[in-house]
């Protein structure tokens, strides 16, 4: 029941906001997102006190097509739900002080997006998962289309077509699995696992690629990433935050829940290829990031590099790798939202994101510069920041898998330091110029977003145990499946 409330409260709030068309839509949306955060706190309490049964809901919805409304929250889901409910208030808060045409539509769509994201993370029925997965695309598409920057029509359309193509392939795979479920066909997650594990090696390979296509486009992993830099650049900042902070985690979550346990032989057979392209993506995206002239694009490419590392760690199929992916998802979500907000603040003051035009902001806005440094260090995985824990676990898992791949993946830290420090140097240090001389320091709502983010980055870096312990049992359960298969690997 609680889980259902968690999913549909944002939708109800969104409909209310659509209907009221209030000038105060931003405040309403922020209030709703805060209430949602409280609901998720209750969920954590229930989860911790062992009342996990209360979080489950399962009933038949459309019998003829095998659709059940089946939702549940385990450790993996809980972390991502928390990521969503924590980030959305910040994302909404970050937009305060800006004026949007049709604000009620804008904030309503953000909340609809939140509904779909939470639905994706808690659905335990394959078709329900697919429905939420697709619904998530609609609000973000319109957010980018209506409030985006130059040339947004073409760019957001490319984004839409890429993800839609991936999703449709996933639909085929899900239907195929559904038709192979033992007994009465069902989309129940356990039934789909049983169906997938019963398939022959060849069939598992084909299911693997169909599912992987959908998840790889969403993350995005090289070479499915070509929609991403443009879309991140052109989207309004809140849209970029949603896309990079939460939406790309849909892809990673999809791999953990709907790929790895479904076709174990497929994953073992093709995992190496997947890791290989992920590692190629890490190096490739990092190199491109180094030569970027635009601040926002640079972060977009760095995001591809980070996600590549997460994907590579996942496919090692070790507890280290998957736990590393879990914590890195949280860390990346927080860091990237902070980072895009800082870019937005800089753009707001100077009307440019070209690195060549910036410089010297540190002199006029020391608070902004400090916040940027900490966020940046989180991004380059300095010890005692949140980024370190995740990247360390991920790289060590890849290293155990194939030492040379681990070594290559480890380059991400060095390359990351190169482009991030260069960015800092070009934007913040040096002398002020005509554009940056008038930059003002953080306002109240910017502080309200960035200070908590900075605190979280450091806090998770120092004491990640609570987060790791939430997902640990679920990850262990996931890997149990593979213990009889390790001999083959």
């Amino acid at each position: 029941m609680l889980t259902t409330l968690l999913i549909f409260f944002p939708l109800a709030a969104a409909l209310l906001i659509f209907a009221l068309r209030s000038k105060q839509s931003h405040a309403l949306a922020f209030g709703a997102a805060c209430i949602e955060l409280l609901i998720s706190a209750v969920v954590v309490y229930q989860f911790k006190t062992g009342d996990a049964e209360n979080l489950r809901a399962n009933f038949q919805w459309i019998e003829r097509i095998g659709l059940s409304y089946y939702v549940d929250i385990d450790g993996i889901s809980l972390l991502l739900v928390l990521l969503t409910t924590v980030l959305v208030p910040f994302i909404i808060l970050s937009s305060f002080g800006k004026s949007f045409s049709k604000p009620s539509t804008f904030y309503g769509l953000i909340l609809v997006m939140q509904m779909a994201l939470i639905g994706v993370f808690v659905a335990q029925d394959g078709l329900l998962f697919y429905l939420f997965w697709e619904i998530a695309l609609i609000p973000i598409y319109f957010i980018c289309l209506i409030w985006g920057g130059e040339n947004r029509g073409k760019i957001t359309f490319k984004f839409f077509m890429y993800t839609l193509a991936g999703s449709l392939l996933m639909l085929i795979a899900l239907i195929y699995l559904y038709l192979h479920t033992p007994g009465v066909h069902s989309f129940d997650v356990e039934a789909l696992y049983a169906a997938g594990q019963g398939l022959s090696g060849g069939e598992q390979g084909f299911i693997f690629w169909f599912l992987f296509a959908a998840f790889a486009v969403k993350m995005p992993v090289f070479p499915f990433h070509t929609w991403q830099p443009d879309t991140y650049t052109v989207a309004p900042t809140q849209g970029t935050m949603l896309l990079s902070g939460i939406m790309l985690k849909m892809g990673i979550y999809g791999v953990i829940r709907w790929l790895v346990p479904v076709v174990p032989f497929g994953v073992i057979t093709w995992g190496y290829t997947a890791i290989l392209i992920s590692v190629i993506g890490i190096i490739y995206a990092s190199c491109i990031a180094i030569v970027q002239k635009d601040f926002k694009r640079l972060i977009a490419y760095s995001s591809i590099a980070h996600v590549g590392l997460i994907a590579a760690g996942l496919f090692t199929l070790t507890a280290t790798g998957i736990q590393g992916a879990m914590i890195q998802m949280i860390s990346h979500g927080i860091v990237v939202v902070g980072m895009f907000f800082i870019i937005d603040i800089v753009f707001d003051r100077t009307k440019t994101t070209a690195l060549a035009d910036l410089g010297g902001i540190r002199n006029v806005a020391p608070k902004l510069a400090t916040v940027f440094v900490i966020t940046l260090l989180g991004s380059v995985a300095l010890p005692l920041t949140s980024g370190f824990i995740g990247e360390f676990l991920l790289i060590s898992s890849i290293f155990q898998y194939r030492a040379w791949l681990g070594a290559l993946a480890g380059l991400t830290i060095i390359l990351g330091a190169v482009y991030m420090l260069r960015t800092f140097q070009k934007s913040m240090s040096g002398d002020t110029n005509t554009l940056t001389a008038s930059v003002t320091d953080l306002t109240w709502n910017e502080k309200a977003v960035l200070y908590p983010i900075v605190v979280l980055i450091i806090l998770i870096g120092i004491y990640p145990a609570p987060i790791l312990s939430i997902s640990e049992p679920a990850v262990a359960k996931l890997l149990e499946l593979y213990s009889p298969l390790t001999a083959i690997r």
Partner: protein
Amino acid sequence: MNALYIVCGLGLTALVAELFNARKILSFLVIIGLAVAIGLTIPELGTSVSYFTNMVVFDNFAMAFSILIMTVTILWFWMAQDYFNQDLAHYTDRASLILFTVAGGILMASFNNMAILFLGIEILSLSLYTLAGSKRDSLASNEAAFKYFLMGSFATGFLLLGIALVYGATASFNVQTIAATVVINSATLPAFFYVGVLLIMVGLAFKISAVPFHFWAPDVYSGSPTSVTAFMSTVVKVAAIAAFVKVFSVCFGHIAPSWSLVLKIIMILTLAVPNLIAAAQDNVKRMLAYSSVGHVGYILLAFLSQPENSASGIFYYLSAYSVASITSFAVLLQVEKLNSGTDIVQFNGLFKRNPLLAVAITVALLSLAGIPPLAGFFGKYMVFIQAIDKGMISLTILAIVTSLMGAYYYFRVIIAMFLQEPAGGAITVSTSQKILIVVLVAGMFALSMVPDYLLELF
């Protein structure tokens, strides 16, 4: 059966309404009459009664399709008020022609005898030929009527010859007798029987506008008055597909291997060609015409994968499709009325000019494109699940590629509405049309929430 009497009665009433100066209440009368007909049919669901010495059978298949046809007609009447008011002198003629089309459609869903099938098709077609040309001063409308008439009568010729050949082999017009004969004598059927089956397929493929028998459709759809186009691409399509499904699942289902290859080629072409061409259209009306041809491809895919067990999936698909189509045409009519054109540029900035219209047509186009959670998605989902169940994975992938093309051209309109600068001032919509549009949007969501009710009809 009562439905058929009522519809014919309404048609005759409409013919003479002018005499009694009843034009003003005619529209109201028609909507009430059709609602009563639906109300009388619903309790009969679950029964199967034959009439006229077994020439017509009202089973669940016939009644479900009749209800769909009449429901869409009600929505259409509501939508098409302007079409009737434009030309008051022909108000009653048009209403009666529409009603006779509906009567023909009901016969096409309920026939149990090839002669009735033919009769139904002719009643439907003859009225439509006239309706297509009902904008007398428009060259395009005249062209549409003429083209439709020539092509349509040609197709009817094929159908008739096919029926005759099948009669020659089975000595019967009765659907059940033909089916039984086919089962018993399947080894000894003469070659001309199969020629007959193919000719019937060609004839009906014209009616459902499957490629390569679709050439009339885009010109007729874009030349006819927009309201008539909406009627053709919903009500008429539903009736034609009902007839097609019934003939080939009941009569010739047993010998499916002999025609399934031909139908498969038709299906592949129907998926690929219209979707490709639609992507190149700059006129929304013409784009919708091609897209409506493309949708037939998905229906044929569902039918082909399980000829004897696909009716409920197809019925759901058609319901979702019809509601979404009527919605897009309702918005199209409003845009056309103000801008006197249906080019895609007329949709520029519609979101700013009238958010209700923009959101409604967006929902409709998303449903047509098959985006969850709208009804169109569940329709496509059922097509895919049937096809994959029968191992037609490569055809399903083709259907997915064409769905992507569909998304491409539907989104061109969406992008124009939300992205471009307005092409004119605000659009005001009459209250009745506003209510209709809200009802239609609610209908699209409702269809997706509770598809079980429709699926369990048969």
